């Protein structure tokens, strides 16, 4: 069955430190993969997406993600975290030509001053 797993429910990093959020997916075909961010009480905003080509994709707010087919992973990274990055992050995969997304459970990021 198609699924997305975010192994880390909660992560705390210090401001200025690097960040990596993990995402593993289970899907037979070439996936369309996404990372979304949700600030408290808000909707979800698209950070970046992968659908083909270069496996390292750049997104907004200084985020990047790397698609690794051999590991079925699409981890999100940022070299230096800012306090405003504190939010919940969701990885998702498209599972059909109707655009349906399956989301991971989410990772809550806390940033220490």
């Amino acid at each position, binding site marked *: 069955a198609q699924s*997305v797993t975010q192994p880390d*429910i909660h992560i705390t990093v210090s401001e200025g430190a690097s960040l990596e959020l993990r995402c593993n997916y289970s899907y037979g075909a070439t996936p*369309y993969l*996404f990372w*979304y961010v949700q600030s408290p009480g*808000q*909707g*979800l*905003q*698209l950070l970046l*997406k992968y*659908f*083909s080509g270069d496996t390292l994709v750049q997104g907004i707010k200084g985020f990047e993600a790397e698609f690794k087919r051999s590991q079925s992973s699409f981890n999100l990274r940022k070299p230096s975290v800012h306090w405003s990055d504190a939010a919940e992050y*969701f990885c998702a995969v*498209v599972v059909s*030509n*109707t*655009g*349906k*997304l399956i*989301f*991971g*459970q*989410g990772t809550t990021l806390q940033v220490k001053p």
Partner: protein
Amino acid sequence: NAGVTQTPKFRILKIGQSMTLQCTQDMNHNYMYWYRQDPGMGLKLIYYSVGAGITDKGEVPNGYNVSRSTTEDFPLRLELAAPSQTSVYFCASIPGEGPYGYTFGSGTRLTVV
């Protein structure tokens, strides 16, 4: 452009009551979706539509109904509200088939008491 607009933002229902969550988009998107978000569970697909007059069930459709009479509108109907329907509901849209990121509405927080 307003994007995806959801109303109301908050609502408290009594058990057994009914209501309609409204979703409107002004981007001429063909594909629209309803998700519910529960803590620690990510987002689960309730219903989706790939065009006016076409709807289909998602992962968790029980207790809900939808219609799509126009491209712009995709209302979600709750009949006989139950406490298990307490959740945050998000509407989203994309132009059509392809690697598009969703445009999300800001959500409706529903409490059933």
